């Protein structure tokens, strides 16, 4: 009996020792220089991606073939991960997480140099590319998004016209009036929350910046109270709350269905959804499949104007980075540069190009005509915001707090809107004090 106890203890301690050191030891800082001679770069690189759909239909293979024409000795392999964030996070505890990967949101910015090779200084890259500050640590850039996205409402033009609205609403009140007109004059669901999917609700955080057309909006999140009267998030959340309260949404949000919502919007059963430019191509495809006119899918900015102009925030999609442990950094760098500069990825997705010199995509024409002002929000304090967010457990990038907001608005949760915001403010500002730095 005694011998067994001792054995168990020995095994136990033996297990504890490596457990404590399991994640230790990793090199810090490396550069992935852009190769000068394409014919000399060689190696097989593995690219991790979330776009499993593009792997299945062979689109990524075609990009790789095109890339091979310039870099004949580099072989590109793709690995699609459906639950990207969770899986990559675990793999990043090892050295084996592909050569090129999308920088996951959970990695703290300060840790970028431990995980990714630098692509160059911000000074130099910032001249040519958008979104460099999102991955800049100490003046060095660690990732590059191959396309830009802008949040906004996907809407069915036909339905909005049938309801008698032809101009984009300029205030949240006008927007609500528009939805009410849709409810009164058409059979469509004025606004679809996609409550069950969750991420569709967390997308409301991207109103940040559009409301006051403020490139310093993220600084305000880090230093101010996001739910103070008139603050961006409060304006967005209030609009969401009012829509739900006025019963302008789907009948049972808890069982809403994202995939179904695409053809339903195309067919005019749903009038509006808050998403982003990235969704336009998916909704148009859904329209084609459903046999209705893809041109009915429209896109409008958040109903707020500064100096008589709408404002659209352009932000990066996932940034591509290079594994700091990769033995083929030159090849990996060649792929990122080619994918960003030369590939047709952004055009194919009707997305905004990451190159500052490139023109806006065709789908943004109505924006140009309406004189919408495009801004990029400065992300220098992004890491701090993330830190406060984690510390406070509010989760502005997570669905829970807005699911609670929707529940509150439709009476499935007790309390008033003011006390709901007050609670968020309290938790946020408390975390600001402790998470500071």
């Amino acid at each position, binding site marked *: 009996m005694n011998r067994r106890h001792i054995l168990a203890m020995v*095994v136990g301690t033996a297990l*504890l020792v490596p457990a404590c050191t399991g994640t230790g030891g990793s090199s810090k800082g490396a550069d992935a220089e852009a190769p000068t001679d394409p014919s000399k770069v060689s190696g097989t690189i593995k690219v991790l991606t979330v776009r499993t759909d593009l792997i299945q239909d062979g689109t990524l293979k075609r990009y790789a073939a095109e890339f091979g024409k310039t870099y004949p000795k580099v072989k590109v392999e793709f690995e699609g991960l459906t639950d990207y*964030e969770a899986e990559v996070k675990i793999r990043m505890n090892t050295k084996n997480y592909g050569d090129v990967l999308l920088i996951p949101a*959970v990695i703290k910015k300060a840790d970028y140099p431990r995980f990714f090779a630098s692509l160059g200084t911000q000074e130099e890259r910032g001249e040519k590319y958008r979104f460099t500050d999102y991955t800049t640590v100490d003046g060095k850039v660690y990732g590059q998004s191959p396309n830009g996205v802008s949040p906004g409402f996907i809407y069915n033009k036909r339905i909005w016209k049938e309801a008698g609205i032809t101009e984009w609403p300029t205030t949240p009140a006008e927007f609500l009036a528009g939805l009410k007109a849709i409810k009164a004059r058409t059979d469509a669901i004025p606004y679809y929350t996609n409550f069950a999917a969750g991420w569709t609700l967390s997308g409301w955080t991207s109103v940040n910046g559009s409301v006051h057309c403020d490139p310093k909006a993220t600084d305000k999140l880090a230093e101010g109270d996001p739910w103070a009267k008139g603050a961006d998030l409060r304006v967005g959340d209030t609009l969401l709350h009012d829509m739900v309260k006025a019963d302008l949404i789907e*009948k049972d949000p808890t069982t809403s269905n994202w995939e179904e919502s695409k053809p339903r919007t195309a067919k005019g059963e749903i009038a509006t959804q808050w998403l982003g430019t990235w969704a336009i191509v998916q909704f148009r495809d859904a329209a084609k499949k459903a046999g209705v006119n893809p041109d009915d899918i429209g896109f409008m900015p958040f109903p707020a104007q500064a100096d008589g102009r709408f404002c659209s925030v352009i932000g990066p999609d996932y940034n591509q980075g290079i594994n700091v442990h990769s033995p083929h950094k030159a090849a990996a760098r060649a792929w990122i540069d080619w994918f960003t500069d030369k590939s047709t990825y952004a055009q194919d997705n009707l997305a905004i190009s990451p190159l500052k010199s490139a023109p806006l995509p065709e789908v943004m024409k109505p924006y140009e005509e309406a004189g919408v002002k495009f801004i990029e929000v400065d992300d220098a304090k992004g890491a701090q915001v993330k830190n406060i967010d*984690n510390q406070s*457990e509010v*989760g502005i990038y997570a669905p829970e707090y807005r699911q609670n907001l929707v529940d509150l608005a439709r009476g499935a949760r007790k309390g008033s809107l003011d006390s709901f915001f007050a609670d968020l403010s309290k938790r946020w500002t408390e975390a600001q004090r402790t998470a500071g730095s």
Partner: protein
Amino acid sequence: MTDTTEKAAVKTAAGAASTAPSPAPAPRGTRVWRGVTPWLFLIAPLALLITFTYAPVANMLAYSLTDWDGVSPELRYIGAENYAEIFTREDLFRVFFVSGYYLAASAVQIVAALYFATILSFNVRFRNFFKGVLFFPYLINGVAIGFVFLYFFQDGGTLDSVLNLFGVETEHAWLGTPVSANTSLAGVSVWRYLGLNFVLFLGAIQSIPGELYEAAELDGANRWHQFRYIIAPGIKPVLTLTVILSISGSLSVFEVPYIMTGGATGTETFVIQTVNLAFRFGKTGLASAAAVVLLLIILLVTWIQRRLVPDDKVDLV
């Protein structure tokens, strides 16, 4: 009862062995081999058990004493701070109210399983078919069940359609309010686990020797008497086990609510909360501590229950 007969057999065998002339002691090498052989057989299961159960648990214990965020290569030892945080934040424990729904549901589930097991242990027409029907849901993977029931509870979904057939028009949003959502989810969990309880009960009931029923019938006992005085005491150990499993199961519900509602509308359970802490807010240390606390709570509940209902030997004969 089978237990006692077996023991008797062993006893006689042992007795026989002791009276027989003992063989000469085996040579040293053979003796060593005899000592080692069982361990050789145990290597494979022990290696699996240690790698996949004890090592992760030890890791979790270690992480619960750090402020690790789940990815960063840096982690600091912070002692019992995580535990202090858990026990000083009552909002972390409020989610246990949700377990109440599942606890109530498992009471229903045990009664229903017992009922079906008793009925189907007698000679009923199509009994094998019904056994299959009842056990089938347990074989389906939990994620699939979640998705199936999302359609089931949808507005105009399966449940509404079926109710329509019976002339009940309902506008009820099944997952719409905390009470309704939790009840619906607990219902799904009953549907899923009923089969397992049922099979456990059925197995126990069928191990009761048939003569007992015959004797009881001769004495004029009806079905209820047979259940009350033969079946119920006969399956008591299995019943206790099931109750323990149900309680620990209710405290650690995860799959069904996580997939169907993601914890929205007041359906968040302790495990969902732990997962969110670890993977959404990067508080892996705190989440590990929460997991340890849950483990301790379950051990405590089990211990209390064993004290209240001691597991005494059953002897029907």
